[in-house]
């Protein structure tokens, strides 16, 4: 991204001149595609999960419509996760800095960020969320295909029917746990996080505060710690 594109943004009035590019347009589009499809899957899936939430299916056209689209939207979601994997997998391997950060995660939870070791572009929590969604999506896809084609699974292989429902439910619950934390942190807890995924840029203080090693790397300032 060159300086010229950073001076203006269609949705945001502030100048982008003094900000650091963090997410490319492709990364942002794909992220919101994931978010949209995941939320559709969440609403319809919760409708199938409990009679007390079945009314959620009415929001998206009723039970049969929700049942029809849920697996197809699941395929779109899978595609977006594959693209996300190709975007970020190189940045998501845990390293020494992450392990040091993980030891001090209590400080992070208590908002005592000044006691935290410096980390790179993504911290340990973000990497955990990334891998949780990658592996969770693999499980949801495989078990989801089993649920989709339940009527063609022969009786002799009925163990697959049973495995599909348990794996789909368990994997979905784990991703929901991560999703709750992810949405809370990126919209409420950390100012600047949500706008980073809209504008693609972050302020320099934000970068220095949350991802000091990445900040030093992209600005070239104080390359001391690496």
């Amino acid at each position, binding site marked *: 991204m060159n300086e010229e594109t950073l001076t203006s943004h269609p949705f945001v009035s502030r100048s982008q001149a003094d900000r650091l590019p963090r997410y490319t347009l492709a990364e942002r589009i794909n992220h919101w595609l994931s978010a949209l499809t995941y939320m559709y899957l969440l609403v319809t899936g919760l409708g199938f999960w409990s*009679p007390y939430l079945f009314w959620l299916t009415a929001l998206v056209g009723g039970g049969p419509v929700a049942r029809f689209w849920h697996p197809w939207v699941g395929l779109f979601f899978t595609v977006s996760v594959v693209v996300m994997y190709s975007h970020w997998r190189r940045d998501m391997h845990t390293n020494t800095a992450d392990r040091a950060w993980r030891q001090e995660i209590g400080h992070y939870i208590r908002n005592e960020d000044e006691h935290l070791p410096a980390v790179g572009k993504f911290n340990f929590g973000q990497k955990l969320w990334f891998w949780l969604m990658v592996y969770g999506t693999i499980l949801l896809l495989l078990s989801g295909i089993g649920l989709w084609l339940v009527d063609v699974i022969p009786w002799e292989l009925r163990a697959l029917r049973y495995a599909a429902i348990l794996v789909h439910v368990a994997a979905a619950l784990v991703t929901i746990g991560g999703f709750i934390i992810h949405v809370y942190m990126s919209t409420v807890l950390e100012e600047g996080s949500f706008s980073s995924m809209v504008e693609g840029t972050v302020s320099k203080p934000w970068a220095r505060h949350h991802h000091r090693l990445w900040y030093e790397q992209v600005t070239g300032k104080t390359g001391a710690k690496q």
Partner: protein
Amino acid sequence: MSQATLEIRRISGHAGPVPGARTQRQEYEVCKLVDTTTCIGCKACEVACLEWNGYPFSETSFNNSYQTMPEPAWNYWNLIKFNEYEREDGSLMLLMRKDQCMHCEDPGCLEACPSDGAIVQYTNGIVDFQQDRCIGCGYCITGCPFDIPKFNPASKTVFKCTLCADRVGQGLEPACIKACPTGCLHFGTKVEMKELAETRAQQLREHSDFPNAGVYDPPGVGGTHVLYVLHDATKPEIYGGLPADPHIPWAVKLWKGPLKWLGNVAMVGGLLGIAVHFLRYGRKRIADAQDEERSQV
């Protein structure tokens, strides 16, 4: 056998109490009795089922057997399963069992179904699918321990034997019963049919060469509203794969029981957790930002 017995006792995917529960004086539960020892495999019951329910005839397949097709279909609810069985003494038996929905007292299909009212159990014990409420998810296929519900790809809904709830509600016997020429099919109350079945099994034990003759009324699903008299009740599998001890699959029990509780507690707990976190710790502040920089955050 009156309309009153079609009050709803149990209902699938339903939040809150059951609308028909305890509104009626309990009259009786209905039951179909299939005496496999007097079935001649004529398939009149298969034809009667199609005729009454008005579904198109399915393609048959020949597999060196008298059986019409390998398994029941969405529009073929009633199928006689044939098996040539060799006994220990070398003699052959041609076993015939009319396979259909067993109308379990504890129906696994109803337990698994997420759609409000798509599966109901009437006070007379009939388990009935309501296709207008069905969303076509196929959870009932997973829940059934007898592999009975069948998916119709055209309507995207699931079908199975209704035990002719429409006929029974008008005081008639099911179509298959009416068509049976040998009297191997009986219809009445569960108590009567159980008595009749036990009497017949005793007769087989005492007066025929079937010391293991008995009645199939599996307790694992709370008993069924279809009973079988079998020549050898110790080996139900030889009758076209009748399960020896059917239960609602443990995976379905786990999913609808502990896993549902755990999941609900975890999801509500997660929401409460972030709310408490926010109230206790608030937003993260960027401590070392200079004032003019912070305004850009």
